[in-house]
């Protein structure tokens, strides 16, 4: 390297690194510090309690339940979203069988591509309101209204979607998937378009059907994007705070009776409502560790040989 280059680089890095240290690293450290105290959240008086918060955490059924719900989200949200997005992206880009024998999307694919992206434009808060109306627990709800009209549901006993322990998590998964598919469709579409057409055409000539060209060509060449999508969705699944806290019953959501609780809602309730802020900070630390572990594992597990073209 040329002389002075280090100083030049360091000069550029100095302020961002300082900002990062102050606003990112320092709060992490502070939180860890608070997690060892009985801080109540509204003043700066507290005493040191060692690892008591952490031991209490592992005996806390509500928090343990919340971790399981997050894990369930972690498994189902990425799998369902990615599969749907891949399927739609493939149909939109290469699923059609054109008259001229070239590779193209199904009829109307340009239209679908725009429509699928609509949900992504909505903020999560609006989604919560929207799906609140869909899942509404009386005949005024969209799902209930349709099901009652079809005679599948008794008008005196409408399905209380978000108040049913067996449905509530799936109802939330459906919202996230609906929201996410459009974005990943566009992501995968962009990646698919960079796959040279001649590969597909060669496969076509060799007699490959839709399924074969998808599994033998599209998927391997898209692996990088799928991996990215997986990490993104995994992180979203570890969070879920906005939807759970606004759509489900109780203060900061999590209802009915903790059946939809996620780590972040339990944390917020303890932090703000119960005034057990030190304990909530311990939850924050556990959340951070779990999220880090999950992303590292996902990045490792999905690593494949990369094909260049």
């Amino acid at each position: 390297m040329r002389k002075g280059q280090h100083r030049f680089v360091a000069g550029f890095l100095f302020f961002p690194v300082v900002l990062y240290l102050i606003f990112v690293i320092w709060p992490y450290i502070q939180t860890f510090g608070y997690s060892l105290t009985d801080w109540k959240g509204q003043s700066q008086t507290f005493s040191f309690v060692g690892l008591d918060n952490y031991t209490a955490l592992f005996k806390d059924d509500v928090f343990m339940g919340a971790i399981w719900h997050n894990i369930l989200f972690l498994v189902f949200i990425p799998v369902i979203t990615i599969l749907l997005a891949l399927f739609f992206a493939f149909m939109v880009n290469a699923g059609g069988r054109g008259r001229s024998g070239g590779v193209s999307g199904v009829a109307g694919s340009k239209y679908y591509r725009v429509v699928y992206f609509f949900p992504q434009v909505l903020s999560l808060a609006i989604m919560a309101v929207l799906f609140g109306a869909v899942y509404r627990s009386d005949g005024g709800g969209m799902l209930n209204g349709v099901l009652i009209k079809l005679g599948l549901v008794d008008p005196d006993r409408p399905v209380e979607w978000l108040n049913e322990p067996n449905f509530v998590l799936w109802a939330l998964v459906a919202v996230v998937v609906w929201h996410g598919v459009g974005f990943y469709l566009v992501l995968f579409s962009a990646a698919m378009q960079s796959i040279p057409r001649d590969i597909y055409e060669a496969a076509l000539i060799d007699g490959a059907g839709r399924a074969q060209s998808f599994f033998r060509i599209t998927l391997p060449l898209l692996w990088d994007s799928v991996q990215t999508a997986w990490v993104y969705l995994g992180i979203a699944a570890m969070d879920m705070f906005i939807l759970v806290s606004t759509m489900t019953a109780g203060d900061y959501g999590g209802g009915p009776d903790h059946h939809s609780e996620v780590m972040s809602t339990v944390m917020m309730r303890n932090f703000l409502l119960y005034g057990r802020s030190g304990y909530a900070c311990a939850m924050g630390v556990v959340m951070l560790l779990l999220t880090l572990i999950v992303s590292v594992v996902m990045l490792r597990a999905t690593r494949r040989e990369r094909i260049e073209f």
Partner: protein
Amino acid sequence: MGSTSAENDGTGSTENSTAGVGRRALIKRSAALGLVSVPAMSFLSACASGGGDDNSGDNEGKTSESNPFGVKKGSKLDVVIFKGGYGDDYAKAWEAAFKKQWDVTSVHTGTQEITGKLQPRFNAGNPPDIVDDSGAQQIPIDVLHKNGQLLDLAEVLDAPSVDDPDTKVRDTLIPGTLDAGMQEGKVVALNYIYTVWGLWYSGKLFEEKGWEAPKTWDDFLAICKDAKSEGIGGLAHQGKYPYYINVAIMDLIAKKGGLDAMKAIDNLDPKAFVGSDAAQEAIEAVYEVVEKGYLMPGTNGLTHTESQTRWNQYKAAFITSGSWLENEQLKTTPEDFDMKFLPMPLLPDSALPFEAIRAGSGEPFIIPSKAKNLPAAKEFMRRMLSKEWSTLFAKEANSLTILKDGVDPNVQLRPGTQSTVEASKAAGDNTFRFLYTEWYSEMGTAIENASNELMAKRIQPKEWLKRAQAAVDKQAKDPASKQNHRD
């Protein structure tokens, strides 16, 4: 093209292509890790704090008979108002009056996010001067108090009243209304609004159907049955927030078992629920409504606005709520709805009479102990308890305050509010008020969860009693709960 490489996708054109991990892969990976930290971060940083600092502004003026706290003219007052069911117009009217009187300019904040806006300020030692700490996102009073953030309001309450300088402010209030603001024997929050809780119905609907307002639980069930046969729900409640139905359950317990049954719960008695006949009969009575299908269909999952609007559309005979209901539903209530309040109907052999109601003060106003302009804040609170400001409130917010005869008789009240005035007159001294909700947020939430399960028929009364008792027993183990006790 077609070459494969696991890690190294450098093309060899740059010097550092020999590194084990390709540059692009490295960037991608670190970006992914950066992303990881984003969602976790937003929660972690909520825990972070700025340091505390002390900032003693010079806001002391000279005290005099008409200025007992020494308000300094020309100073500034930082007012934060919960802008919920009552809006915040009343506070603006007060602030204008205050400005006229003392030349103190108010910095007004009307918000629903009390916690979000104020928690950082409390932690930084920089709180507002007076706060209406209410709503779903209120900072719990017990939490604030435990952290030494609240001013003991004795000084304001023992000051001379604005209307009658010979009387202390304390003695101009409806008896018992200060209790809800007590923490460890001190009044630290002024619950300003006089609220009554119970059932509500539409006078018009009842007249149409020929129903009489029920005084006993059996009459109540009979109306529910009748309503069901007419295709409308008997009882509606705000299921997404089990707070509401819990009020009805607890009121039945208190009326059946008397004040002792109520105090047993507040004082964390080991027989507050399991082993209490009142609790058992009350919860079985409520469960009967569920079992016989008298609930408005779907009400268990509705929000307060959804269910109350349904009730306004004559889809249910009764709904549970406090007296903020009328103001909250102003826009959806039909002109001729004729909203009426009803005390909880009686179970057989109840200890309290039918007229007895849960009544008390709500909407806690607090003065932070570290407020910058304490003199003006105290004076502001003293003025709030004057007839002039109390009337301003009744006009702007359709509700009563804790000031005895606090409303100018010339102010015309809406039907629901009028019926609460009559009900509270009929009740006289027969009012009661649970305090565990102010003292033990966690226990309250646990009982509400159990009630939610009961209403959805997922648990039986026996299980409800067990869970409620477990919540009480758990709270009793907390050494801090020894400091709260009522006789």
